[in-house]
């Protein structure tokens, strides 16, 4: 068992997670139900009930630098099964947002996938799947990943070589710009 230095308890972090997620983290009594049902537990560096515990004891760095918060797929199993009615998936979402803000993202690839996705939405108003795939693969230095899927999509009307912008693409861009301004980005 690890022994916790009281001085390492970051109370502001606990409060910030509670406020942003709207959840009372102290309710968690470590039953482990969330972890038991989590389909991604096999890939997590810190299981989800331990993430909850680490928040309770204010271990900001450890939580925000974990890979687990990025490997969570928001499948909502934990939220559905928590006997304390904590929206655990919402907490995981909040932690991802905080990790971005604090520059502590441990899974650069997943973060970039999300960014590229949103960039596609900002440019075209909708996600342009092929463009997203090419851009993501090029940037990850593996341009031919998934290349064998091409023939499975070609000729089936599932691949479009060029993006199609919606009429309201300006309005969508505005949403992103107003949002950035509001958040001072």
């Amino acid at each position: 068992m690890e022994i916790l230095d009281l001085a390492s308890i970051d109370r502001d972090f606990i409060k910030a997670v509670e406020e942003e997620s709207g959840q009372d983290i102290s309710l968690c009594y470590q039953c482990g139900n969330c972890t038991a049902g989590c389909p991604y537990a096999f890939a997590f560096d810190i299981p989800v009930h331990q993430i909850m515990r680490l928040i309770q004891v204010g271990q900001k760095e450890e939580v925000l630098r974990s890979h687990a918060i990025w490997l969570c797929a928001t499948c909502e199993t934990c939220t559905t099964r928590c006997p304390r009615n904590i929206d655990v998936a919402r907490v995981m979402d909040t932690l991802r947002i905080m990790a971005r803000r604090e520059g502590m993202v441990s899974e650069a690839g997943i973060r970039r996938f999300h960014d590229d996705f949103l960039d596609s939405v900002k440019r075209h108003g909708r996600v342009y799947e092929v463009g997203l795939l090419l851009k993501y693969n090029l940037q990850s230095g593996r341009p031919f990943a998934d290349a064998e899927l091409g023939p499975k999509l070609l000729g089936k009307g599932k691949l479009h070589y060029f993006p199609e912008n919606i009429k309201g693409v300006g309005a969508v861009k505005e949403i992103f710009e107003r949002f950035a301004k509001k958040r001072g980005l």
Partner: protein
Amino acid sequence: MKGDRYAYFPGCSQKGTAVEYGISSRKVAEALGVELVEIEDWSCCGATPAHTVDRLLSGALAARNLATAEKMGLATLVTPCPACLVASKNALELAQDDESLKELNELLDLPFKAEIQAKSLLQIIFEEVGVDALAQKVKKPLKGMRLAPYYGCLLTRPPERAQFDDPENPISIDRILEALGAEVPDFPFKTECCGAAFGLPKRDMVLTLSGKILDMAQQIGADGIVLACSLCQQNLDLRQGQINSHLGTNFEIPIFYITQMIGLAFGFSSKEMGLDRHAVHPDKLLKKWEEKLKE
């Protein structure tokens, strides 16, 4: 029903890898007298990526479509895609708070009142059309087809948000398939997650998780899997070859959208339902079925 018109939100994948979901959804809705009015110039709902950035951004992206639907005078947004549904519901939930509603409106060009509701097409078919009305329209029952009903994670979870079916043992797809004449075994993995949107950044996770679902379907002797999510379909069908190389398996399990199966039973051709667009061809199963129908 009752002559209701619904604001139809297809979602981006209906324009790409899930084009047959969109096509079959429209045809089946029409056959059922469910009027789907496409939301004018709809935009992406933000899906999973937006809510990892900020709840407000994600809410505003979804709210643009909800606000357009409200302007069109429609009371319910209907989408075939569970991820789009969640994004819409999250936006509506966020807007319950006056301060957040104000913030959402600051980002939008249209006034958003948050008076509309959001439902999946599956929910409309199951609850408002109903399995009895479906059964009455069946021309070619799915006799001899043993189909595993697969819901994935988001459709019924969490129950407070989904307000539909059961979060641990959903039955809507089971009942619909039964009404169409199919044999529907218990599928223990009906709500397991397929790997969601990790196909690009973490492909191995998708191959592992989707592989387990295919394996279970095979173990229960299913001829195919029937689902209601474009992302699940993509992971299980399009990536089935990758799964086989990754796990050393040789699955060849056709993966259908629920709307395609309704359409087949209503007498639409497999081509009209876009079955020729799948990576794993269902030809063998369709042949077996045609023979069964002649008996």
